[in-house]
């Protein structure tokens, strides 16, 4: 195997694919779009009228109009008499009151519903419902209850709220979940876009009918490693652009709008070394596994479309951990996340997610990596075999039975 040929081939693959419109859009266009969206969010959040639209002060008084004659002259705290319906509505519109509550005539015997006029944004407020309950209870029981008992109605019952995890722990857990989610999406995109480039590149060799010219010039191994090296570099370039863009975007462009995740350093600060090592190794092994499979499957079709059909199964099953993300977030050490960690092509994403979310037993980590290593071995055997035979095949797309035959015969 000549390293010079691998280098020339890798450089050519990198150069020509870098110039493709699809790559340029995905690499630079997506961060640009994200920047525009985040800058838009930031701009909107700084407009004063916007604050009025989304901010609701639930401590403002509620105006009351009692047409049923149920309430005593003195109202509980937080409630005020409205002069009339029109004045009450004006107060609500101007933001001086949270709501106008009208007890209609015949309430509650003939008419069962209160009328409530609200400020925008307060429609589904739990606080509002609670205050309405207080008002109705007050209306019903102010005659039968003593002043002390009535005073109890003015405030909701006190309760001791027990938080099982400490505040810091809860914050850390939330950060872990966010981090796992963001990283798994980035990881997934990096892994599959790079493997996808490989699949396309191999399929294109057949489609363009350049493959025999190349194989008369370089060995199958040189071609395979040349492509893998060039397109891996391309994939990692894309990843690097995304990470740098994300750092800039989250750190400066939209910081105020992104809360505690407003900076990349905030996102990465909670990352421990175990996670970094596991995620890095899983990314590397996962890439090798998918790349080798895609190289083989890419060689089976006569064109890019046929090759993509062959790779569909691998790609779909590879996304299982993301599709079943809720199971990982609920219980990272549950049965499904554990099983997926031991299947070679779902293991990279699964183990990375689990380690990001919780403490994973060392045995599970070892088993996941053993499965990935085994997977890489099998992918190398299958991928290279399919590549060697498939790359020179032409005519109709082979059936799965024929693929099985290719795997068993000498090449």
């Amino acid at each position, binding site marked *: 195997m000549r390293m010079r040929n691998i280098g*020339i081939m890798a450089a050519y693959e990198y150069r*020509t694919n870098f110039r493709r419109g699809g790559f340029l859009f995905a690499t630079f266009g997506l961060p640009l779009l994200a920047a525009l969206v985040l800058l838009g969010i930031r701009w909107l959040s700084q407009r004063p009228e916007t604050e009025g639209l989304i901010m609701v002060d639930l401590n403002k008084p509620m105006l009351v109009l009692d047409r049923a004659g149920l309430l005593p002259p003195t109202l509980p705290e937080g409630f005020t008499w409205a002069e009339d319906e029109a004045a009450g509505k004006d107060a609500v519109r101007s933001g001086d009151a949270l709501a106008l509550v009208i007890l209609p005539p015949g309430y509650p015997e003939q008419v069962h519903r209160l009328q409530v006029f609200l400020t925008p944004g307060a429609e589904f407020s739990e606080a509002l419902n609670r205050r309405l309950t207080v008002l109705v209870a007050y209306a019903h029981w102010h005659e039968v209850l003593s002043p002390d008992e009535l005073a109890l109605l003015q405030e909701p019952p006190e309760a001791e709220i027990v938080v099982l995890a400490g505040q810091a722990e809860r914050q850390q857990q939330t950060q872990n979940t966010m981090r796992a989610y963001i990283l798994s999406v980035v990881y997934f995109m990096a892994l599959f876009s790079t493997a996808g480039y490989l699949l396309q590149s191999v399929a294109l060799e057949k489609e363009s*009918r350049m493959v*025999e*010219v190349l194989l008369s*010039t370089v060995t199958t191994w040189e071609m395979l490693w040349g492509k893998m090296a060039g397109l891996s570099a391309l994939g990692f370039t894309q990843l690097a652009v995304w990470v740098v863009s994300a750092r800039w975007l989250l750190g400066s462009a939209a910081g105020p709008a992104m809360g505690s995740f407003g900076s990349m350093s905030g996102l990465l600060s909670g990352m421990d070394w175990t996670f970094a090592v596991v995620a890095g190794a899983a990314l590397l092994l996962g890439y090798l596994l998918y790349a080798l499979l895609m190289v083989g499957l890419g060689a089976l079709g006569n064109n890019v479309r046929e090759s993509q059909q062959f790779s569909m199964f691998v790609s779909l099953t590879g996304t299982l951990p993301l599709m079943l993300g809720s199971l990982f977030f609920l219980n990272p050490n549950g049965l499904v996340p554990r099983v997926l960690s031991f299947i070679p092509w779902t293991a990279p994403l699964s183990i990375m997610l689990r380690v990001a979310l919780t403490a994973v037993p060392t045995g599970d980590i070892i088993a996941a990596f053993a499965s990935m290593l085994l997977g890489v071995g099998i992918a190398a055997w299958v991928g290279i075999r399919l590549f060697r035979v498939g790359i020179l095949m032409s005519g109709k797309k082979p059936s799965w039975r024929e693929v099985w035959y290719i795997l068993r015969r000498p090449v």
Partner: protein
Amino acid sequence: MTDWVIETQQLYKSFGTTRAVDGVALRVPRGVVFALLGPNGAGKTTTLRLLMGMYIPDAGEIRVLGGPPGAARQRLGYLPEARGLYRQARVAELLVYLARLKGLDARTAERRAQAWLERFGLADWARRKVHELSHGMQQKVQLAATLVHDPDLVILDEPFQGLDPVNVRLVDEIIRELQAQGRTVLLSSHQLHRVERLADQVALIHRGRIVEHGPLTALRRRYMQGRIAVRLAPGGTLPADLPGVVTAQPAEEPQSWYLQLAPQASPQQVLFALVQAAVPLEGFEVVQPSLEDIFLQAVAGQEPVLAAA
């Protein structure tokens, strides 16, 4: 001692139950134009792919340019039957890339690519993308890619396929130039009539087996069919009882006949008889067997498969 550029012994290759190459033994001396001929599906392309090291043989031995197949890739130029180019690539850039893979440094590769583009009248198209070129121009680029690194051995699989007459002539010219430079050219084709004016030596392959091989002149002698073409002056008549002639068949042209000789008869004997009978001869030619005739005779008894060339 002969310097063999290609040497194979008892070469076998099967795909499933189909035996594509069945005991092929080839010897191609240096500096000749060697034609591997046979109908479609005879095993030519598989044989070439074995020579290129793209397939591993089931059995047999191969030596190309003194080493195992694939060892001398940089001294070898290959124009495959299924050929194409990257449609989005720029012409000169693609040629430089292939030349560099063949071992040339960047500067030499650029110089050679430019020279071949000029040779084929494509210098003005160097920076254009391949898909902007006509079909004929793309074929010239493919040929340039085969030759850009000055190979010692050139293997052309069906080089005339899909070519217009102008490009057929161009390929003829290139092959003759390569031959004049002392390079070895291995041609594979099912178009026997196109090859016979170029080849020094041929091997006829049928169902994966070499059915005949050797220098073309020797093969022609061996397969001489005892036919003579005669043309008479206007008014002349062909005697009915020429000695040694079994049948006389009128040819397409007026006053012309094909004479089939008896096994022991010689052309000289017939010519002597015609002169003695004072027949007004305008033409007398011993008919050479075409490659197609030779092939048909060589596979006689086997299933006829030769497509009309």
